[in-house]
């Protein structure tokens, strides 16, 4: 039962957290501007008509009453209706989820494909030319504002060469891959430096440990040593770093989706906030929070699986 108990315990922990987040969002959005009634009825409507709509939607009820009603609905999977389009928020968000999943998925994949090799090389060739070059590039990548990187990639790569679309999200699988490559690369450039540095540090400390000498003494070398001895022990910290990085990636998604006109959750959030569509904003916020919680949960479980010393096994 050890394993599932651990996962169950973690899941139970997230529930109060999500309630907390929804409450904060609710309170926070109450003091934001943008009278929802005006958004629904129209900019030229008279006060009487606005008041009528406020009563109809219960906007004048005390905040806590609205919160309880909102949570009640959310538990039944009803995220409310967008003020403007009267479309269910779950549908609006549903249309956008796969774009952001594609962006985050390929962003992480690229980050891994870039970080693991460079992290291993940086560690194995410690303080030699390759190591310094990698760390130098890392420092530069770290300090480049993502949207700036995105625009430069568009202008110097996408438009002159035409290999990638200048934005938007493709329909067929190959189009999707082509349209998601540069945004994912932008994400990877922003997050790889941290993963490389973390992985390099943990590999170095693993290489200096005695069980590596033991392994070497019995003839384990090369790829087998790296795979079965080095990476498995340095994976834990690296995965945790990836989880932290993904927390930032979600904010990055807002910026990068805007830069590349990707109709994902990030741009959806920007447009919903701009249009003061509160139910949509609440829906996006809940989803972002859920995503961050799930990301940490998965990384936590994977790290626990990888490291036998963690108690869940007992």
């Amino acid at each position: 039962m050890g394993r599932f108990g651990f996962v169950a315990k973690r899941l139970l922990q997230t529930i109060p957290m999500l309630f907390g987040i929804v409450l904060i969002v609710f309170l926070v959005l109450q003091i934001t501007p943008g009278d929802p009634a005006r958004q629904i009825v129209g900019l030229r409507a008279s006060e009487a008509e606005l008041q009528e709509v406020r009563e109809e939607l219960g906007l004048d009820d005390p905040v806590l009453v609205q919160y309880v009603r909102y949570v009640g609905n959310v538990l039944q999977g009803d995220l409310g209706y967008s003020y403007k389009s009267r479309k269910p928020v779950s549908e609006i968000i549903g249309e956008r989820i796969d774009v952001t999943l594609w962006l985050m998925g390929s962003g992480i994949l690229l980050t891994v494909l870039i970080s693991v090799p460079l992290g291993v090389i940086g560690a194995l060739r410690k303080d030699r030319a390759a190591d310094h070059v990698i760390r130098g590039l890392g420092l530069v990548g770290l300090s480049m504002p993502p949207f700036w990187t995105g625009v430069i990639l568009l202008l110097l790569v996408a438009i002159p060469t035409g290999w990638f679309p200048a934005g938007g999200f493709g329909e067929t699988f190959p189009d999707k891959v082509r349209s998601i490559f540069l945004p994912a690369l932008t994400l990877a450039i922003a997050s790889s430096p941290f993963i490389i540095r973390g992985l390099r540090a943990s590999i170095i400390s693993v290489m200096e440990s005695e069980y590596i000498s033991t392994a070497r003494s019995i003839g384990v070398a090369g790829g087998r040593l790296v795979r079965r001895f080095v990476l498995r022990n340095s994976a834990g910290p690296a995965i945790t770093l990836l989880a932290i990085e993904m927390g930032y990636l979600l904010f990055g998604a807002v910026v990068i989706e805007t830069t590349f006109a990707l109709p994902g959750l990030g741009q959806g959030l920007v447009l919903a906030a701009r249009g003061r569509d509160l139910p949509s904003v609440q829906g996006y916020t809940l989803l972002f929070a859920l995503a961050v919680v799930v990301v940490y949960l998965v990384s936590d479980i994977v790290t626990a699986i990888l490291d036998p010393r963690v108690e869940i096994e007992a």
Partner: protein
Amino acid sequence: MSEHILEVRDLEVSFTAHGQTVTPVDGVSLSVTRGEALGIAGESGSGKSLTLKSIIGLLPPNATVVGDLRYALDDEEPIPYAPADVHGHGISIIFQEPMTALNPTMRVGDLIAEGPRIHHGLDKKAARVKAVDLMRQVGIPTPERRARMWPHQLSGGLRQRVMIAAALSTEPSLLLCDEPTTALDVSIQDQILGLLQELRGSLGMSVVFVSHDLAVLGELCDRLAIMYGGRIVETGPVDEVFADPQHPYTEALMTSVPSFDATAEQLRGIDGRPPDPRAFPPGCRFAPRCQYARDECRSAVHELRDVSAGRTTACIYPELIQGVKR
């Protein structure tokens, strides 16, 4: 077939950091005859552990090694070798701290199976069977069950036995032991020493055993080499060295070893502290702490001279040593 299995001549190990160079192993020469158990004794910082690691080529990356190391790879004359040549082919090593010497994320059975899989090309299943055999051979109870456990689930003694099993998995002809019993409490220590003694006999393996504990060395080894300040200061058969030390440091070591019948005043520590590798004194490095020290000692060139058959010393006045009053 030469009687030596391992020959080490003028071994030097040095490190450079922050512009300073340090040479903790400063010109060591020794040899191991086939089937022999050589003990290397010395306080911490004497360079004994580094010497051992140089033999099997497991020094930290920032170390630079100079010297002529020869090993009888396939029972012929000892020939120069690169570390990779002997890894898994002849030389194995076991370390002091079993907890850090075993891969925490690998089952002990799988670790022991690595050797057979790599060198004898056994498939997974066969290698596992071989691993269980090796665990039984080193005295681990219910080896089938224990093979599936993780290092942190075993006691210190059992972990050390796993270490030994792993070392034996490549059927070495020379086993290097870097203070394997120091971290264990005395009762377990004897079991492990007994096991090593028995394995030596049954496998005809040569052993180099490094320790600061003369009692342990006395029990297991045939010959002794005493190291001080990165150099060998005396060698010889164990009982001869114990009975008639030819170097003041060996004599001082003997008197500082507590034994049941020794009275309190016979116990004398050695005043002063082991030399700092960054600033070795000139001439004989033990001179500052030697009770017989003369002026010539401070300028003498270090050289191991024969005192009698199979006995050497670096002291230029061995005759001054009164010997151990025992």
